[in-house]
């Protein structure tokens, strides 16, 4: 059996959760993996609970929805509170934005906070790329996708005029991840 990794990204509508999932999935394709991604969100464009899921596998994926996440990426308190109950085994990781989420202590669970939103606001003067900062962190900390695959996926999924900004956001995320390791 090859490796299968299940990733859940969650937060609020408007934070780029769905795009984040698409970029991550695309990165998996770039790495030559099998990928399935799905998302759910409310009818509102912004402010409602939002979830995006990605499965990255060495083999074809039969059931394409996440059954048990290996990695939870939380960008809002509400989303963290809702999905943290699915986590708790060893080898699982939670990555969260430390300005947005206060964590619960869960023994054995690796929970890593990063100032993603803060870095996006201060260094790039654009809060909206916090999602891509997080993706850089995830790539560095978990190695579910390679750095090159991530950067190329970003180029394919953001409009031309935002490419440089998003690539910079990913680089900052990769650096944040390296610093924590």
């Amino acid at each position, binding site marked *: 059996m090859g490796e299968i990794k299940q990733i859940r990204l969650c937060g609020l509508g408007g934070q780029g959760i769905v795009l984040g999932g698409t970029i991550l999935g695309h990165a998996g394709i770039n790495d030559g993996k099998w*990928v*399935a991604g*799905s998302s759910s969100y409310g009818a509102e464009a912004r402010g409602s609970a939002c979830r995006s899921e990605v499965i990255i596998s060495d083999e074809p994926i039969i059931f394409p929805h996440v059954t048990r996440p290996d990695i939870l990426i939380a960008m809002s308190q509400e989303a963290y509170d809702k999905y943290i109950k699915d986590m708790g085994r060893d080898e699982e990781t939670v990555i969260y934005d430390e300005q947005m989420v206060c964590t619960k202590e869960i023994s054995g669970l690796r929970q890593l906070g990063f100032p993603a939103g803060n870095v996006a606001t201060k260094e790039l003067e654009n809060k909206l790329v916090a999602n891509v900062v997080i993706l850089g962190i995830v790539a560095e900390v978990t190695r579910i996708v390679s750095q090159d695959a991530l950067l190329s996926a970003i180029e394919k999924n953001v409009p031309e005029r935002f490419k440089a900004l998003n690539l910079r956001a990913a680089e900052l995320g990769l650096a944040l991840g390296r610093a924590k390791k």
Partner: protein
Amino acid sequence: MAWKEVRSALPPGNYYYSGNEAAAEGAIAAGCRYYGGYPITPSSEIMEWIAVRFREVGGVFIQMEDEIASLSSVIGASWAGAKAMTATSGPGFSLMQEGIGYAAMTETPIVIVDIQRAGPATGQATRVGGGDIMQAKWGSQGDYPVIAISPWSVQEMYDQTINAFNLAERYRVPVILLAEQAVGHLRERMDVREKIAIFNRRKEKGAAPFGGGDDGVPPMPAFGEGEKLLVTGSSHDDYGLRKVADPLVQARLTARLHNKIVNNREEIIEYEDYYAEDADVIVIAYGFTARSSLFAVERLRREGKKVGMIKLKTIWPFADTLTRDVGSRAKKIFVPEMNRGQIAGEIMKYTCCDIIPYNQTDGEIIHPTTIMGELRRLL
């Protein structure tokens, strides 16, 4: 024959597409160059993708005033010689029923993608459903043939849209891609091959455009090619002349429309068999539910349970011979569906085997754990 190999419109490779995007690309690959449609969740991405890509490949895209006009324009485009399609969901599919009957009667090759959502009526626009199975076959008046296909993955959204065009052109019939929201909005790896096989409608100078040959499928000229061409939804003879009181013409026409599909059904019908050979309990499933089912079946097989699955790829014409055969081997047939038992009822027509339907209509997909639980009770 009118089969040929063509280069794929997309460069070969692995893509990360949604099911809706894959259907749009499949249509373009098959040679579709007309799209008339009206946006509706959860199908709109097909239209959006087509609108952008047609500017690159040279197609005509028109947003019509509603779904009745959309399908009418698609039928017109087909008679002008183009491969033509539309996409919609439940409420729009209902409006298209009149056009589907007209296309079946006039033997017009068209493709309709129905991304099913939770119904009835406007139901839940963003949620999944599978309630249009019977409507696809019986939605218009007067007993007519269609072909309907149920894809379970993004790859099949691409491959089966190509297949849908080939079948439409081969048999001069409306073909419906009966997908579900869960597949339309799923994103997956999609592999594009360099070459694909394409069937283009047969043409024969001076031949009767409604006559039928050995296989019951007549050649099809387009307007502007110099043929004397009459197209009518009223009953007509081999040359399209209205015959609205002639019992012989009516009997021949209706029988031929039916037989050109039924007599060729072994060539049309596709299915996949997973562990069904020695299984006591066989799941018959289609679309997204077949993925949940296969996940459950494989888990139970690892425990040594004798369970298998048949995945229906073709819904209409229905796999009657296959059903008879499965029914004669299995002790029980389990049929999970996102409707109130539409295919379960169809299966009951062809076998006396014990049929256990499982019907979930809450706007959510049927989860593998649900299917596993139900199967455990049957084993």
